[in-house]
Structures are given as C-alpha cells and as structure tokens.
C-alpha cells in the first residue's frame, strides 16, 4: 500500500478508534496509546494482505475489540497502583478547559448536577435518577441537553 493511502487510512480510522477508546478510558495518554497501537496493527494487516474481504473498517473495529480486553486488564493493574497518588492535574489559566469551567455554572442547575454526578462521581444514569428523583431516561435527556448546550456555547465563543 502506498504511503499516501496509508496516511488517508490513518486519518479516517484514528477518530473512530479514539471515540471507541474514550468511551472506555478516561486517561488521554492511554487513549492515544490505544489509537496508535491499534492503527499500527491494522496497517500491518493491510500490508500483509490479512484483512478479510478487504473491509478495513470492519477489521479495524474487530482489532479494537480484540485488543480492548488485554489493555483493560493491564490498565486495571496500573490504576490500582496509581490510585493512591494525589491527582496532579490543574486547570491552566486561559486554557480551553478554563473556558469550560466558566460555562458550567450557566447551565440549568439540574443539568449541572447530572454532569457532576456523571463525570466527577462516575455514576450511571439509573443511579443518578434515583438520587434526583427522576427516571433514567430523564437523566440521559438532561445530560444530552447540557452537553449540546455547552457545545453550542463553545462554538459561539461564549465564556
């Protein structure tokens, strides 16, 4: 396969693999490792003509699923070791995340709470619904609206 074609393939596959990994892991470095290693595995198979039926996208998904369990096992061990260390993350002044922090209080209060419970406390919508006295479906709708609203504000340059 020509280098140019490989480059195009990587551009097409990388975002999909990244979404796949971001759903499962919160650590940006782990996600990028997974993306790079999965891309390499796919490219290698393409070069060696090992892609069944030539369907590279389906093969990429299969590769991701196959690698996921191994990586999850390794990460679980590593995270257990790291969990006692204090979080070292900070929000840099002027960073895009600082803009996001300023936007959060502008959301409707129930939406704020759903985001906090989801992303700070790591709760699923069924549990959040129980705590907030609403259905799981309502929690999902609130979370979706919150995220859509934030996306709209970020695109509009609001802060």
């Amino acid at each position, binding site marked *: 396969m020509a280098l140019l074609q490989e480059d195009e393939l990587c551009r097409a596959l990388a975002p999909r693999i990244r979404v796949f990994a971001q759903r499962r892991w919160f650590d940006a470095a782990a996600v990028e490792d997974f993306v790079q290693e999965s891309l390499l595995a796919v490219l290698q198979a393409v070069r060696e003509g090992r892609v069944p039926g030539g369907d590279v996208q389906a093969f990429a998904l299969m590769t991701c699923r196959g690698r996921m369990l191994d990586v999850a096992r390794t990460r679980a061990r590593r995270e257990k070791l790291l969990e006692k260390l204090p979080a070292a993350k900070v929000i840099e002044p002027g960073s895009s*995340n600082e803009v996001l922090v300023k936007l959060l209080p502008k959301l409707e209060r129930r939406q704020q709470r759903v985001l906090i419970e989801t*992303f*700070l406390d790591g709760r699923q919508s069924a549990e959040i619904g129980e705590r907030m006295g609403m259905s799981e479906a309502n929690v999902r709708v609130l979370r979706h609206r919150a995220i859509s609203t934030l996306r709209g504000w970020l695109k509009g340059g609001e802060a």
Partner: protein
Amino acid sequence: MSGHLDEQQLTDYAAGERLDAAEVEAIEGHLFGCDSCAARAAEAASLVTRLRDVFRALPPMLMSDAELEAMTRTHQVQVCNVGAFEQVFATVSPHVDIAVTRIAVDLTGVERLDVKLCAADGAPFIEVSGATFEPGAKFVNVVCDVHIASQNTAFRVQLSGVRGGVPVQLADCTVAQPRA
C-alpha cells in the same frame, strides 16, 4: 442499524453510559462505517473528555488545616469564616483560585460526615457522602467552586453526619453576597 445515530445515542455512548451489549455493538459497527456519525461522535467524545478533565482537576471538597495552609502558599485562596448555623455576607472574587468556607463546627465523636454545597433554596450543586475528615476537628474547610461561589447571590453549605450512631445536623450556613 438503519439510518444515522441520533445525538442522544452518541452522547450516551461517549459519556460511557452503561448500554446493553447489542446496542454498543450496533453503535460501534455503525461508527466504523459512517464518516458523518464518526465525526459527530468524535466531537461529543472530545467534549466528554474535557468535562472529565475539568472535574478531575477540581480540588477535593474538604481540606485539612494543613492542606489549606499549604494551598495558600501556592494559590490565591479566599477564606470565608462562618459559624455552623450562621449567615455571613461576603463577596467572593471570581479571580481567586479557590474559595474556602471555613465552618466552625465541633466534629468530636462524629463517625460519618456528609457535605452538601447548595444554592440558597437548597438545590444541591455538589454532594459528598462519607467525606474524609479529621476526627475531633473544630473546623471544616469546604472548597467551593469559585464560579459557583462568585456567580450566585448566595450559597449554603450543609454538614450532616452520624454521632454515637445517631444522625445529626452539624451545620447549615449561608454565604451571601452583600446587598448593593
């Protein structure tokens, strides 16, 4: 799966919502074959990642006196002193790094501590059940998000817990912006 993924599905997927295996399989099968949905999913996942980063970067909700003292050496910290069932007036600057409500409350004999940061009407912003605290401490330092503290006309901190096996209300204090 027929057609494109709807926005709600993409958000649920990106947010790590527990979906049934068949639904995850269908979503992922579609994402890997559809440029349009892959692009929308990438956008949703990127914002979810940023939200996780933002929440992970928030300071812990309670700080010991030693942690508070160390924090004041490296950050701009605004401390607001308040009695357990008192209302005080204070202007929280949006330019400080951290706003701390320092509540005078005796934790002697307390076995469990729950913290709720809420609006003046009691609607919660953040709750921590079973917070880590120093046994016998005479003050509780509650870290309040600066944006919550500075952009609301008032906020309340409620501390409840268990002492001697009995549920107790330990504090219900309010920090209000001074009236103009």
